[in-house]
């Protein structure tokens, strides 16, 4: 117990600061997040007051409008960013921090937020899709699967319009996660992002026990990882005396606090980095924290899987890049070996395990794990080029993966049946629906990194950055892993185009406007980013003027402090 005495010298007492002025908050900079948050709150109210019959259309309109609005606001901010011109100091072209330095809005943040908003918009279209009065979500999630009560809800046409506010809140977390400039904000963002997702995972209409199992697993494992993350924050705070990224960066450079004998607290920092890494690696699904991914991707409603595989992955990697490249940027020698091991394990194990998968969603889940490994090579590089490569990769992968999941929602075992999970049921799809199969083939080729698709440019960018940073063995492993993954992607293509279907073959639902546009957007983005990636890459790569001016400056990595 802390002795409450006055005997401590008055000078040594850190007197509590009495705040009289509220912190200055730049609301314009935060506007995209605020719009999404406000829409989420309003959506809850709609849930309470709007008539049930019109609830769905109102909710959908509100959600889409708010995401669109937030995107426009983000684009406006990008326009307001000062262009790098010769002679400008790096600070001038960097972004700003606001709300007591807890949120940083800079180029990487804006790119990530814009990407997340677009991906969420596309996912929302998938969420909203209904066929013959059936959405992807359970009629009433609280009922026992298979019970009379459930059936009566299905017959009565109940539907969960709560899905929209939940997605909006999750989106708020995703937007804040990569923008957070201190660990506490980041933790809050992590939870705001995760909690709605835990719920959404359990809402699948078909195979509800799978879905509920997925939700429970995701929640329990996620809770544990978050706990470790929090524990790590405490340790790093002990080292740096602050949770702010810039302060931590500075503390690492100057040696940190002198907690232990010998005047060092480095062990505290290292243990803290490792524990924070556990939390972040869990969210991106790197081996050995990947186990939730196949189960959850398989069990969750497919539109939510699409959201998790795209938006959440982008957000989690955005946060990870900021933490490792900026906050822990000065301790790169300490964490690099750890991420080396994780990246190699992730690429190799996931690629090998993916070969044996028979369920298409599990397969894409493992493929997502492998892709996480590829992006990790860019994190290991820890250079501006690595950052740019990773950001491009994430955007490219996000569009492709949403498209792939959109295709999955359309292919059913039989008329009005559940989604055709087993890939053997996909045989002959190329003949019955050549367009759909062609779209999926394109997505799979992009996953494999075949030239003229976005996957190639992305892989190229991250691998080149990693080689430039001296991680050539890692790239060799990565390329070999891509060879293995290419094998199973091609296997699906061969199956779709060349194999004889069992029986009548898969039944394909006619793509509605919403799903159709999702697939179309995926195809367009995959091709566009593969054929003409220059505009995107140019915005990502650090402007030459910055690098040339002050090579050692803090903003070299593109993050603001």
């Amino acid at each position, binding site marked *: *117990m*802390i002795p*409450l005495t*006055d005997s*401590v010298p008055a000078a*040594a*007492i*850190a007197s*509590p600061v009495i705040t009289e002025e509220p912190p200055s908050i730049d609301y314009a900079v935060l506007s995209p997040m605020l719009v999404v948050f406000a829409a989420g709150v309003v959506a809850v109210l709609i849930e309470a007051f709007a008539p049930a019959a019109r609830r769905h259309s109102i909710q959908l309109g509100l959600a889409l409008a708010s995401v669109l609005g937030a995107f426009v606001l983000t684009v406006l901010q990008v326009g307001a960013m000062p262009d790098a011109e010769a002679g400008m100091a790096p600070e001038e072209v960097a972004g700003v921090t606001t709300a007591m330095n807890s949120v940083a809005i800079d180029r990487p943040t804006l790119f990530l937020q814009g990407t997340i908003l677009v991906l969420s918009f596309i996912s929302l279209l998938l969420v909203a899709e209904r066929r013959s009065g059936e959405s992807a979500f359970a009629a009433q999630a*609280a009922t*026992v699967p298979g*019970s*009379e*009560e459930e059936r*009566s*809800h299905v017959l009565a046409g109940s539907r969960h319009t709560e899905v929209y506010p939940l997605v909006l809140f999750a989106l708020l977390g995703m937007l804040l996660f990569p923008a957070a400039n201190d660990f506490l904000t980041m933790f809050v963002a992590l939870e705001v992002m995760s909690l709605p997702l835990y719920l959404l995972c359990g809402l699948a209409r078909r195979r509800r026990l799978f879905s509920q199992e997925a939700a429970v*697993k995701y929640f*329990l*494992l996620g809770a*544990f990882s978050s706990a*470790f993350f929090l*524990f*790590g924050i*405490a*340790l790093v705070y*002990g080292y740096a005396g602050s949770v702010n990224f810039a302060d931590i960066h500075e503390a690492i450079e100057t040696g940190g606090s002198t907690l*232990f*004998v*010998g005047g060092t607290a480095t062990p505290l920092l*290292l*243990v803290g980095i*490792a524990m924070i890494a*556990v939390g972040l690696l869990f969210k991106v699904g790197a081996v*050995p*924290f990947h*186990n*939730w991914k196949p189960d959850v991707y398989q069990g969750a409603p497919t539109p939510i899987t699409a959201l998790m595989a795209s938006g959440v992955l982008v957000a989690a990697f955005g946060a990870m890049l900021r933490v490792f490249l900026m906050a822990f940027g000065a301790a790169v020698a300490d964490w690099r070996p750890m991420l080396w091991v994780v990246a190699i394990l992730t690429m190799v194990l996931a690629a*090998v*395990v993916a*070969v*044996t*998968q028979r369920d298409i969603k599990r397969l894409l889940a493992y493929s997502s794990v492998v892709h996480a490994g590829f992006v990790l090579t860019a994190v290991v590089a820890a250079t501006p080029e690595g950052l740019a490569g990773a950001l491009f990769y994430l955007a490219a992968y996000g569009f492709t993966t949403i498209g792939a999941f959109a295709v999955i929602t359309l292919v059913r075992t039989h008329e009005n049946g559940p989604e055709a999970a087993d890939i053997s049921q996909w045989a002959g799809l190329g003949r019955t629906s050549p367009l759909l199969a062609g779209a999926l083939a394109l997505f799979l080729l992009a996953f494999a990194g*075949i*030239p*003229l698709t976005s996957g*190639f*440019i992305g892989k*190229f960018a991250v691998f080149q950055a990693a080689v*430039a940073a001296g991680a050539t063995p890692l790239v060799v492993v990565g*390329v*070999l892993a*891509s*060879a*293995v993954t*290419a*094998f199973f992607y*091609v296997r699906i293509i061969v199956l779709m185009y*060349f194999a*004889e279907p069992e029986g009548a073959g898969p039944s394909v639902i006619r793509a509605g406007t919403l799903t159709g546009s999702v697939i179309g957007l995926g195809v367009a983005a995959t091709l566009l980013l593969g054929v003409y990636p220059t505009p995107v*890459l140019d915005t990502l790569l650090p402007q030459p003027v910055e690098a040339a001016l002050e090579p050692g400056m803090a903003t070299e990595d593109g993050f603001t402090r």
Partner: protein
Amino acid sequence: MLLPFLLALHAVVAALLPPLARVLGTRVFVVACLPPALTALWVLAHAPDVVAGQPVTSAVTWVPALDINLEFRVDALTLAMVLLVSGVGAVIFGYCARYFHTGERGLGRLSAVLVLFAGAMLGVVSTDNLFALYVFWELTSITSFLLIGHDDRKEHARRAALQSLVTTAGFGLPMLVGFILLGQIGGSFRISTLVADPPVGDPLLPVALVLVLAGAFAKSAQVPLHYWLPGAMIAPTPVSAYLHAAAMVKGGVYLVARLAPGFAEVDPWRALVLTFGMATMVVGGWRALRQDDLKLLLAYGTVSQLGFLTLLAGTGTQVAATATIGVLLAHGFFKSALFLTVGVIDHQTGTRSIAALSGIGRRMPVVAGAATLAAASMAGLPPLLGFVGKEAALEAYLPGGDPATALPSGAAAVVLVGVVLASVLTVGYSARFVWGAFSTKDTVAERRVPRPAAAFVAAPVSLAVLSLAAGVLPFAVDPVAQGYAAAFDTSGEPYHLALWHGLTPALGLSALVLVAGALLFHRRVTVARVQQALSRWPDADRGYHGVVHAIYVVALRVTRLLQSGSLPVYLGVILATLLALPGARLVMALASGDVAPPGAGGNELRFWNTPLEGVVALLIVVTAVATVREHRRFPALILVSAMGFGVAGLFVLYGAPDLALTLVLVETLTTIILVFVLRRLPATFGTRPDGWAKRLTVLLCAAAGTFIAVSLWLMTAARTDPPVSLGYTSLAREAGGDNLVNMILADFRALDTFGEVVVLATAAVAVTSLVLLRRSRVVEETDPGPDETEEERAGARTGEGERT
């Protein structure tokens, strides 16, 4: 320069072909002819400049950020390749118009993919950027996959297509790594720059070269990766003629020839190229000797010739380079002529089996003549181009033949023996091809076959005549060869392609080869018996399937290990990682003394403040252990809550009764709620770990707990500044309060508290609405279901009642 437009023209025409095919039928291939024909004409128009050493270049920027530019450069080597890819390609496309029947399935797709393939191949040989090369390279892999698997109803075709894709595209990936390395250490991704100024001496260069060669070898079907080429013979014959005589497989040879001027001197380039090239030559030739299917015979012959070409292209001397161009063109002409001949025979007779063909020569004299001419070129008979090329090749490895030879004489001698041996085999199978296809065999019933149309035969005949013409007029080809070979050092007089060099040792060897080959053919029955008697060599095809199967088996094992679906296992993995990373680091820090156990700064370690603490601690430990050992759910729950009360007791002893009170409340409430849940669950835990799994679990959990406890202990003890709460004491007195916690909650941070209250109230409202939900929104219940559901409902109702 026009080249980018020509490439785009390929793509545009390919897009137009499928709709056109519906209107035009097989005549769509005439349209398909256009892009390659135009390209060939264009390159011929530039030929004088190019052979004079002025390459035609152009550049289109594609991805400047990543240094990917579409830079094109047409030099002598490219000129030779374009002649094959586009010139021979145009001839073959024209042939297709006659080969396919109008009713053939997927003509539109086939023609479109063929044109795409031609465009991609054109890109491979004309680009000057490593990555653009890779892009085009993989495009050829994909399009060839579609071409080989054209007849998608045949299981065999699908397998062969997949096999070729996995092999060529799969090994393309290491090649990409090699390219990245090469560009990184060479400082440029431009091929001409790299070749002109190779980063010799860099330790990574050999690694990069080995990786690049792996890709080139897979593409050019070098032993032991040659299996895909014979398998790919399932494709329609014109496709085989194009892919395997003129275009795709030459990609690897092209890459070797392209890089040889810069890198031939770097170890282990030459060792690899010579070893694999020679092995491929001999194995291919040997296997070609025993094929019954004419097309397979040609396929193994192609494997052999590709080995020969790789060997020549990689040797990296002036004479070998000259020979490379000679053999490259010769092979392109004669092999496509032969494939097309087989196509004609197959088309007219419906078979390609030597054992079933007889008297074809009499029925189709023109075809037989053309094929004989082409086969003679393949065997190296004068005055054909094949002879000219082979002369040069023999010259390259003769001791003293090449003044600038960079090979040690021992190696050169071995290679020479290999080349001679393979040439003998080549003569043998060439003769066997002509005999098998056209002779009248006594044992086989003669077939009555319709004569092929003149337009159909025109393609093979023209290609065969090209072989003859280029052989008789070698000075037409020689400038191209000289243009390429100029890149190599030549101290003496440069070697020229010619029919007659005088009475040289090479001429003697050529004669020897012809005689031995003729003998081999004459004693074909004996040879066949020898081949039968020899035990089969390890089959590369089986090797491929073995590797694929092994990947599956390993993957299955790993999957079973990693993907158990069990939550405790997943959690265990996370905990184990936690122990492995930060845990190990902490132990290391403690062991090395970086972190001293607390107790140094007057804050000594003591066991307890009062002995009562010991009692409570004992209670906690006992209940914890007992919980783990308990098999029944209900007692386990009671034990867990007892442990919670123990912790609350600790709080009391440390002077925090309010905290203890909260904990007791929470513990009580959770216990009650859990009891209701337990009512619906079985009395005992269904599955519990046993044996080593149990021990492992206990160990892991104990270790994780210890780790957390130790780090908490270290953390709380490590303090540099006095706690901020000390500052509050004076403030609290000032504000007139005694209880610091109350002062903070209700005064200093009152706004925070207000926020928390709001959150709690909201949560309470939400919980209430959830509880009431079942009443208000419930749908009319039907008759209670059978037995167990009824019981469950009863339980649920009771539980609900108690709670509300």
